[in-house]
């Protein structure tokens, strides 16, 4: 991972903060979900950049290659992506139903409807 220096981490942290900030600051539920996705994706990048080895080939056996990238983080992240998709789907489904039953997906408007939320 020396090829990237620490820049990959800088970018990842930047993305992470953007994501978290969106989750916290936006009042629109869908925007919150988008923020959540950005946040999760930054973590996916984190894992994938872990697996990168400079000068290595893809992790499939082939002639003349001795150094392979680590495939495990990719496998893990594949699973995590699936989880992320599922979470997003559930979140969107909830937003749709919230819109149907409350008529809005703006959090502050939801709060004015019911203070206990």
């Amino acid at each position, binding site marked *: 991972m020396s090829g990237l220096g620490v820049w990959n981490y800088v970018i990842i942290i930047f993305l992470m903060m953007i994501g978290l900030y969106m989750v916290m600051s936006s009042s629109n539920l869908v925007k919150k979900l988008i923020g959540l996705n950005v946040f999760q994706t930054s973590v996916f990048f984190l894992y994938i950049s872990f697996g990168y080895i400079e000068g290595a080939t*893809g992790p*499939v056996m082939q002639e003349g290659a001795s150094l392979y990238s680590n495939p495990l983080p990719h496998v893990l992240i594949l699973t995590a992506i*699936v989880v992320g998709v599922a979470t997003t*789907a559930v979140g*969107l489904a909830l937003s*749709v139903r919230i819109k149907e039953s409350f008529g809005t997906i703006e959090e502050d408007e939801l709060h004015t409807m019911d203070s206990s939320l």
Partner: protein
Amino acid sequence: MSDHLILRIVGKFLIPYILLFGLYVQFHGDFGPGGGFQAGVIFASAFVIHTLLFGLESAERIAPQWILKIVAASGVLIYALVGVAAMLMGGNYLDYDFLAADPIAGQHIGIILVEFGVGLTVASVMMLLFFTFAGRGEAS
């Protein structure tokens, strides 16, 4: 988008190849990069394009929701039952070595079956998700 002629033609032209590519990724999974997750999504994306171009009703004629539900469930079942089969044949859960007399052949069989199950579920669930959201909008 049914009035966009170019999109429709290109879409019609592309959809079979997308499906084919999906199948390739699916069944190449035990030799190279690929596998059920990716294949399922690619496969489902063909249907998503179809729906976008020709409407929900047309897509649901090809893949009704109740069939998709069964497919999704059976994909999980295939995965789980392969594991059970390995267990019944004397190995640990999902130990493909025991699926055939030759451990390597067993690994092949096991991976293909499991990835097939995964592919089925992913593809059908992706379609279901899309159809559900798309259908919701029309109803309300």
